[in-house]
């Protein structure tokens, strides 16, 4: 598979950010380092972390299938989220190396099974990825401890074991030393995976003591081992020291994993938590209540709502204003007819200028009534307006358009 097509693939499902690329590169470099001892040439390790995911998905599918085994189609289905070419590539390699084999070795075999060794290997790889081998070292030390305590173990085996341990610690220490002199970013990234906790040092020293007590003649190898352990502890401390010095005022908090912090908050006693703040001086509450602010607060107090007294009522029976208004349509028509008739009298047509009063308030009431009359088709009166307009500043209204009320 070409690198170009790989990139295209990735662009399609998520943007290839610099961060993502860096993370991938870090994962790949760990893979390369782990299998350097087994690789035939330097290009033999996967160039995309997704390829390992395919293998893991396949193994999970095999575990699910049990004795049914899996056909090629079923394998493809299990890995349906991955592109076909990546899947084929993986399957070819896995088959070639024997991680996936035919159930029975005969031609045209359609069903496959997974190799137990490869599955375990993959588990190991994942663990190594998580903590850079710290927990492996723990396990290894625990196993070696058991081994050297076993009465069947020979001196030669113990020598071998001590020598291996010494070598591992030395290499680990060397890596840390290199990191310590390198860039602070790389140190921050890598060191916490590599440096040993006191636990590891203690276990290693326990192992060393067991070997030395049982086979005093191995003191030479043990001295080597002891030196390696010390060198490793020292390198760990130095790397941590450089980080502690270089960081800001909260940056080092990143160097403990989230889980450690969570465990601390959940399990620590109040006294242990409180001890963190021993020696810190904080301000006592001392708000300032200015007289003006107090006065303002009093002014803004939610006022008691005074009970609102009902207005005084007359002792006499009061039917209210309801009956004084006759709401019926007939009454309104009658009133309007009366108004019109009183203006017209006997005449069939009367000029408005003659009937309007001298004061505007009564004139405008009159005009309103007449307009209503005009707009009521059932009443036999109409207003007729002419274009004439007389203006007389001494009179009220001073502007008067000429019009007539007519009987129809």
């Amino acid at each position, binding site marked *: 598979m070409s690198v170009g097509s790989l990139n295209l693939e990735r662009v399609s499902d998520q943007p290839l950010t610099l961060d993502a690329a860096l993370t991938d590169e870090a994962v790949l470099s760990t893979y390369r380092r782990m299998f350097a001892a087994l690789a035939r040439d330097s290009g033999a390790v996967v160039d995309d972390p997704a390829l390992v995911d395919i293998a893991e998905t396949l193994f999970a599918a095999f575990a699910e299938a049990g004795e049914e085994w899996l056909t090629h189609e079923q394998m493809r289905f299990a890995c349906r989220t991955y592109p076909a070419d990546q899947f084929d590539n993986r399957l070819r390699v896995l088959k070639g190396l024997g991680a996936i084999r035919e159930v029975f070795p005969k031609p045209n075999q359609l069903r496959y099974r997974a190799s137990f060794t490869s599955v375990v290997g993959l588990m190991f790889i994942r663990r190594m990825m998580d903590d850079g081998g710290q927990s492996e070292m723990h396990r290894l030390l625990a196993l070696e401890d058991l081994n050297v305590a076993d009465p069947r173990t020979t001196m030669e085996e113990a020598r071998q074991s001590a020598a291996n341990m010494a070598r591992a610690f030395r290499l680990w220490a060397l890596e840390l030393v290199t990191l310590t002199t390198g860039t602070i970013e790389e140190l921050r990234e890598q060191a916490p995976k590599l*440096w*040993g*906790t*006191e636990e590891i040092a203690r276990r290693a020293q326990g192992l060393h003591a067991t070997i030395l007590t049982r086979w005093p003649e191995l003191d030479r190898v043990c001295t080597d081992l002891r030196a390696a352990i010390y060198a490793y502890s020292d390198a*760990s*401390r130095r790397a*941590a*020291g450089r*980080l*502690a010095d270089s*960081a*800001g*005022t*909260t*940056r*080092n*908090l*990143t160097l*403990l*994993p*989230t889980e*450690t*912090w*969570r465990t*601390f*908050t*959940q399990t*620590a*006693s*109040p006294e*242990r*938590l*409180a*001890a*963190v*703040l*021993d*020696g*810190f*001086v*904080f*301000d*006592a*509450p001392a*708000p*300032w*209540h*200015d*007289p*003006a*602010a*107090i*006065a*303002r*607060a*009093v002014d*803004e*107090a939610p*006022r*008691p709502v005074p009970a609102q007294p009902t207005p005084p009522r007359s002792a006499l029976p009061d039917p209210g204003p309801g009956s004084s208004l006759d709401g019926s349509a007939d009454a309104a028509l009658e009133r309007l007819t009366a108004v019109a008739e009183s203006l017209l009298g006997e005449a069939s047509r009367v000029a408005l200028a003659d009937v309007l009063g001298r004061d505007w308030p009564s004139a405008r009431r009159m005009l309103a009534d007449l307009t209503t009359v005009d707009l009521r088709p059932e009443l036999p009166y109409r207003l007729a307006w002419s274009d004439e307009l007389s203006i007389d500043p001494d009179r009220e209204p001073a502007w008067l358009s000429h019009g007539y009320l007519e009987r129809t």
Partner: protein
Amino acid sequence: MAPANGPHRSSHPEPTATGAATSAAGGTSTAVGDANTSAGGAVTAEGRATATAGGAIAAAGGAIIGARGPLAAAEVAVAHVWARAAGPVRLGAGVAAPGGMVRLTRPDSTGEALPVWPDGVTPSLLEEHQVAPVTVERSGETRRVLAAALKCCWSDQQADPWPGDPAPVELVLDTYRALIGRTDDLMRNWAIGALRRLHDSAWVVLGDGVVSLGPRCALWPEESHAQLRELVRRLPEPQRPELTVVRDADIVAAARPAEPAPGAGADGGGRVEAAAGEFDDLLAGHDERRRAELVAAFMVVEHAAEPVQEVRFAALRDPALRRTLAEMLSRRGRTLIQHRDRWTSGYDDDVARAAYASGEERLSVSERAVLALVLVHSVAIPRAEGLLPEDSWLSPHPTPVEELRRHTQLPIGELEAALRTLRHAGLLGQVKAGEEAGGYVPGPQFHRLTPAARRRLQEELILAAGPNTPLAAAVLARRSAR
């Protein structure tokens, strides 16, 4: 009611406070006889409990200056740190107040000392410069309760408000009730909560069933007394039934110690002795304008909630003035702290260490534990997850209350009380978001940690959470090398 009820711990859970508060408020006839004999002894007998109560009484049990003669500059700075960290400082009989502090002298010539501000300004200066002061929790309610207490305690209005006369808690509550026109239990609980907060900040002294004005009331400037008189005049008189079981005067008399015990804060009487101007030599060399700028900058860095912008204050912009400002602060055990182009002030590391060594722990174990938990959840964990880019102890990631309630070793009652105290002191900020979300973040006080203090806090957390890691070993190695 227990005879030795003593001063209140501030950590009573407020919602259930009615019972406790009633017993503190006294007003029952049985209380009077006992109180006569116990009230005097309570303050002195419960040394430790009193000391941790915060505020006026706290300092009475904590920092005591007994030495005669003028204090050295370093001692004055330490005294100022005490006053800021634990409230008013208690003075032995006849002992002069440290420079820059007003002396509130009792009839027996003991007293309390409180810092005052240069040139007669008060923190209300911040308002003129439009800088937000530290927020007061439920400020309106708290100030109205203070007004009610003032009305009840300031009996002789020709004199200064402080010291005034003690008044029964019930009278203060009745006055407050008349002011807001509500009589329900909720109002009563809120008012008692406000009284307790005022007690913690030394604005009132809650004694055995009585309230008196706290030392901070002596800091109201002379020219504002007319405004206070007018305010007290405006407050409505409480409507009280004529015949209470015990007359107010008897409650007050009962709460008064039989013979004046030293440092009994509830006792009336006393006078204010003005502070010696501590900055005069520094300020004298500057003209009026510069002097005002220096004082303004001093007030904002000391009292603003957040660091203030350099460009807004001449005394922060100008290096020469800033030097004078730093000198003023250092006389009070303070130092300037820079956050990029913003400034605030904090305790000077050396002075704080000296003050811590000689004073008493002010925060209780559960309060410090809760604070540490919030620091881990809001700062350490987001940082470890790469969510908090800023190198700071403030954080936008709230610690959910549920997390504190469910997944820690703290009893819930202590947790709630501690959260309230820490919030009140500005050590925690509450973030509200919807029904479930929200929680607590480190409060504005964390702006005031010096870089050395911030680094030490980080180291202490690492030592506590991962004591066996090489990182902890490196921290210890570095400390022992120093």
